[in-house]
């Protein structure tokens, strides 16, 4: 693989990187590989991507889709094939030096990552979002634009915290949740909680060996 940074994906994060390549590639070696859509990820051949090498890094830029499994699918395949990843922090974001970021994370412009925050692999934090002191985001999480994750709050793997959603301090959001209705949430949200303006009431998953979820309302 030739050196430099390869950005692979589609969607808003991908395009925002693609249009301002100079901002992200310190040595000017930034290549983009645009996929037609998230639906194309499963069957994407990725033949344009050079073989893995020690001096090159990949960033998978795929927006939230199917509880982040679309991004995870591509990230996981490339990781299994030996590619090395980078995390991308927009120059207009602020990340406290004590924060720990995993690989293939995106920290959008204006985002603020507070002290002692832990962010797992393949997690995206949108523009203007705040992840406050001591909060933790698991792997494969999405935090939307202008969302707030309160101090010491936690978000489980594959969960989506939508734009303008505000999680109170120490609130725990389980795994595989999707909170898309803007507002303040001060109570714990168990695994598989789905809150979306499209749904009037509770959304449940029954069976499949899963823990039953519940939603507000």
């Amino acid at each position, binding site marked *: 693989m030739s050196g430099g940074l390869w950005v692979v994906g589609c969607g808003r994060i991908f395009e925002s990187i693609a249009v301002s390549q100079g901002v992200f590639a310190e040595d000017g070696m930034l290549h983009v590989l645009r996929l037609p859509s998230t*639906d194309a990820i*499963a*069957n994407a051949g990725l033949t344009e991507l050079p073989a893995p090498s020690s001096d090159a890094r990949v960033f998978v830029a795929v927006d939230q*889709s*199917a*509880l982040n*499994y679309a991004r995870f*699918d591509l990230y996981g395949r490339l990781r299994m094939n030996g590619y090395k990843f980078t995390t991308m922090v927009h120059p207009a974001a602020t990340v406290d030096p004590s924060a720990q970021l995993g690989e293939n994370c995106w920290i959008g412009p204006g985002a603020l990552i507070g002290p002692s925050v832990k962010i797992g692999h393949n997690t995206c934090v949108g523009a203007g979002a705040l992840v406050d002191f001591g909060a933790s985001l698991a792997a494969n999480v999405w935090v939307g634009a202008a969302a707030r994750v309160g101090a010491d709050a936690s978000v489980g793997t*594959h969960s989506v915290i939508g734009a303008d959603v505000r999680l109170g301090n120490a609130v725990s959001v389980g795994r*595989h949740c*999707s909170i898309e209705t803007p507002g303040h949430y001060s109570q714990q949200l168990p695994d*598989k909680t*789905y809150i*979306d303006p*499209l*749904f*009037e*009431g*509770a*959304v*449940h*998953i*029954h*069976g*499949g*060996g*899963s823990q*039953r979820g519940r939603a507000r309302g």
Partner: protein
Amino acid sequence: MRSRLPAAAYTDENWFARERELLFKPLWQFVGLRTMLRKHNDFITRRLCGMPLVVQNFNGELRAFENLCLHRQKPLQTASHGNRPLVCGYHGWGYDVAGTPSNIPFEREIYRFAVDELQDLKLRMFPLEIVGNLVFVKLSGQDMALSEQFDGAFLDSLAEVSNAFDDETILTTLKLECNWKLIYENLRDAHHPRYVHSQSIYKNVKFAVAMDEHAIAASKNLAESGCLDRDSAMRALRSFSNGGLNEAMGSMPSYSWHRNVERFGSLDWYYNWLTFPNLHLASGSGGYSFIIEHHVPVSAGRTDLIVHYATARKRNRYATSSAVLYEHMLGGMRVLREDFRIMEEIQAGLHAEAPAARLGDFEHASAGIERWYADAMDGTFKL
């Protein structure tokens, strides 16, 4: 032709009350999925025709009871579904498969029921039938076999498709501000998708009106002559429920999760089953997944819609299954909202002097059903 149904059929609460007694209660109604009732003590609760129901698994036997404790009328099960013995949370009365109290704590010490009073204690039980993974109940009326209401081939088709459902199911309830009949008329209308769903499902499935001249003539005959007796009424009733292959899909999307399920059939078609009076099944994915829509009339102007999604049976468990179901629910909700925005607009516009609907030949099925419905409502035949 002019519709037989005045606006009152959609808006009047007295009309709705008669409809419940004369139509819904005597008919077999879908109540829930057997996949949610697999294990001992699994239960679902629903409210059909105002009747609070619990369907409970007793060591593999499903029973439908009125969901009220015989002691102080507290609902026995309070969640929409779950796994819990049939026990009242107020004073601990427990019930067995026959609906009789199997345990009344401190009965001898403080209740002191007479022997005949004890023998009289039994929950109201309702007939229950299972077709594949679909559970039906009947609330009142004459003894009527399920096969009187549904054609045998249709029941076989329902069993076959519902047996393809996976146990993992996502569900939610929509509270719609419209009469249940508007929803059914819309489901029978193959002409609206090009206008209402032009930016969603119609992009890939070009629903077309089937101008079946034989069916049109039969429906017109029913609309003009009506039902002469109960036998002819039941024959007509059996023709109201049908389904299977509906329309070829323009393209068949391929998703990685498809490899993890046993596809129903092998055709890249849209499947559709309309089960009169309260169930609609469809597969917009060529048999990889299914929507199960349970319509529950609540009042003249309100219908609850319990929406379930299930994929076809899993070959093996896979990590993304809940995400797959959630995405189905999100996508399905967008299409359903396109329909229900219009249903609710129609309902809101109806008033006592509103003109009756004008039906074209392509709406022949609705015209025939209207006549059957009118005959049921005025007592020409009794279900």
